[in-house]
């Protein structure tokens, strides 16, 4: 026997002491001059694949701001990210824990529905709360007293934006693919349908899938066989890649419209059908010298690799917006930051200008320009076709 029991206990004891010391140290670091963002994030369940890149983007922004001395040159930002495993009950518990740990701003995971109990908990403590990338426009309205925010303009506007594009291209008949498993995977398509019909189009078919479905053969067969002249899919990887593969094998030649969840290199696994596809996303201006490319450079400098999805940029934007609001409020007080955030106007984020002020979509939902991109299959790059915002979109329900 190499270690005696006593020595094991001793080692464990030292470990424990070290841990306690570290916790004490970390508590001491909560000095007055830091602004703590608490994030009830999914680290280990099905939403962790979007929260991971978001976290990296947030770190880039925090480093950038803290390098300049912090918010307003004096208040450093600190991120406390804890796992809520996409469990709404645990989400509320974690938010409470974060509040107890001194968080002044709460971020929840990338799904407004799963986040809602936690968000309501934050509002009860008079803290502003923002979903990391959740897109349900009804999200903020369910959080009391205007404390709820989104980080993206939401699925209604994106759906409408795609519909306006489709109508402008002269498409008349659309077939949609959606899933009832999530709000995101069908509200966007619903908004598309509503706006498309408004513009004189016709929905000739709807297909539904379950998150994690392996086979889209039946759906693809129906779509190829239909008389639709455009296909709109509300799926994101790996469902969307599987779907596009099946479309490819059935020899589909109809144009496809995709949504922002696919703004990740993973989508290129889908192969040739991407040549027929157009995707709505954010961050239209990705030219050298743009905020987007500046962010990409910082990201590369920090992580030594290209950003692995658009979510990194959205994470960056989140911190930039929060920092701007705190600076404008001149206070870390929850209601003050809330009000300042509601009045945020044209802040430069990686994905473009962020405006919460007088939001046409709904209180707490930022207006950002959408981008339409196509796919450069050889270089695995997204190429911006145009940017814009829908003229009209369905009201928040």
């Amino acid at each position: 026997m190499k270690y005696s029991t006593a020595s094991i206990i001793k080692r464990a004891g030292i470990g424990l002491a070290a841990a306690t010391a570290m916790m004490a140290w970390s508590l001491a670091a909560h000095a007055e001059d830091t602004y703590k963002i608490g994030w009830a994030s999914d680290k280990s369940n099905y939403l962790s694949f979007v929260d991971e890149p978001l976290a990296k983007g947030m770190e880039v922004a925090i480093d950038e701001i803290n390098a300049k001395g912090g918010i307003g040159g004096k208040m450093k930002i600190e991120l406390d990210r804890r796992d809520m495993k996409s469990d709404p009950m645990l989400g509320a518990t974690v938010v409470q824990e974060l509040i107890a740990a001194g968080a002044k701003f709460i971020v929840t995971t990338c799904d407004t529905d799963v986040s809602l109990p936690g968000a309501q908990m934050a509002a009860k403590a008079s803290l502003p709360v923002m979903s990391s990338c959740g897109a349900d426009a009804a999200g903020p309205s369910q959080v009391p007293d205007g404390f709820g925010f989104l980080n993206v303009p939401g699925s209604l506007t994106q759906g409408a934006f795609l519909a306006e594009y489709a109508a402008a291209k002269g498409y008349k008949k659309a077939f949609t693919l959606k899933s009832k498993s999530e709000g995101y995977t069908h509200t966007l398509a619903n908004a598309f349908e509503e706006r498309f019909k408004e513009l004189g189009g016709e929905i000739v078919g709807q297909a539904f899938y379950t998150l994690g479905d392996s086979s889209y053969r039946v759906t693809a067969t129906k779509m190829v066989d239909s008389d639709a002249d455009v296909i709109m899919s509300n799926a994101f990887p790996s469902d969307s890649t599987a779907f596009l593969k099946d479309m490819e094998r059935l020899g589909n030649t109809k144009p496809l419209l995709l949504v922002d969840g696919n703004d990740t290199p993973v989508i290129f696994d889908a192969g040739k059908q991407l040549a027929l596809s157009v995707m709505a996303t954010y961050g239209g201006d990705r030219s050298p010298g743009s905020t987007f490319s500046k962010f990409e450079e910082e990201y590369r400098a920090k992580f030594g690799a290209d950003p692995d999805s658009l979510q990194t940029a959205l994470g960056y934007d989140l911190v930039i917006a929060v920092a701007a609001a705190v600076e404008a409020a001149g206070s870390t007080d929850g209601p003050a930051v809330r009000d300042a955030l509601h009045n945020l106007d044209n802040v430069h984020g990686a994905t473009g200008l962020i405006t919460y002020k007088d939001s046409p979509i709904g209180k707490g939902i930022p207006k950002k320009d959408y981008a339409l991109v196509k796919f450069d299959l050889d270089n695995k790059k997204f190429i911006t076709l145009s940017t814009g915002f829908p003229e009209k979109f369905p009201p928040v329900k």
Partner: protein
Amino acid sequence: MNMLAGKWWKQSLVGSALLLAIVLVIVAIVALAGSTTDMRILMVFLINVIAAISLQTYAGNSGNISFGHVGFMAFGAYGSALFTADPAIKAIGIPNAPAFIREAAIGFLPAMLIGTAVAVVVAAAIGRVFVRLSGAAAAVATLGFMVIIYTLLSNAEELTRGSKAFSGIPEYTTLGWCVALLALTIVVARLLRDSNTGLGLRACADDPIAGQAAGVDILNSRYVMWVASAAGAAIAGALYAHYIGAILPKAFHFELTFVLVTMVIVGGRSITGAVAGAALITILAEVLRRLENGFSIGSINLSEAPGLTTAVLALLIVATLTIRPQGLVSRWEVEELLHRWQFRQKEHASVRAEENHV
């Protein structure tokens, strides 16, 4: 005096009281010494215990597992939530729901009863199918039931907002409610377990042929337990809804199923087992989670290993099942454990006395 003598229901009541007393001690300790987060964990624990005991009422007595009981929790949660939520919020969220739901704003108890009644009606309607199955077929069929309920809820946009969160549920669930309903659950579950029906069913779980030869009606007994356990699960669901304030179908899916089933299997085949299993799993999960968070700030990157908590928990369960397949307390209730402990002490004492003589 022999605690286990006398009328069976007297023993049930004594046992219930003892078990409840243990839970109350835990509640008191956390309430006095715990943080706000600890209180939340305690509340979730109490709700889970009610759900686990309810599941146990079917699984522990029949020897059949059910992966479908979160479906009944969902009935309780949505049933109760729909009738209590603020009509103003419902007018926006579910404008197309029937008026008697949209405009309803009734109290906690009647709403909970409605949710429970819905679960009971569904359980009664489908129960005959499930009580005939056992083993892997029962597992798959009950899993199927869970998926069916989940799918229906996800699609019921008009009524429940579908897969989106249904919010505006008044937060009625207090510690008092939890304790009171837990007490009720324990007593009813104990009486059911010890009743002729429960006794016979447990006998059949051990040996169906011998059980039937002693006159037991397996299918009807299972059916009674199935319906009763659905009612208990619905109550837990209602408490869940009114504690969290916003519910969605995803909350009543695989994750919660796994947690509840694990509590029951790890605990053992009794009501006490369900409580012990729930306590063990809750404590383990919390310790692991806090370890992860506690270390997430320093330079040690335990937080960069987010799957670790779940992996460790799952492996601990595997270890428990391997080392003690009958569960923590096996088939015993708390008063039986006490009795057996006393009995063994006495035996040891007499053996020692004999040894001294020699």
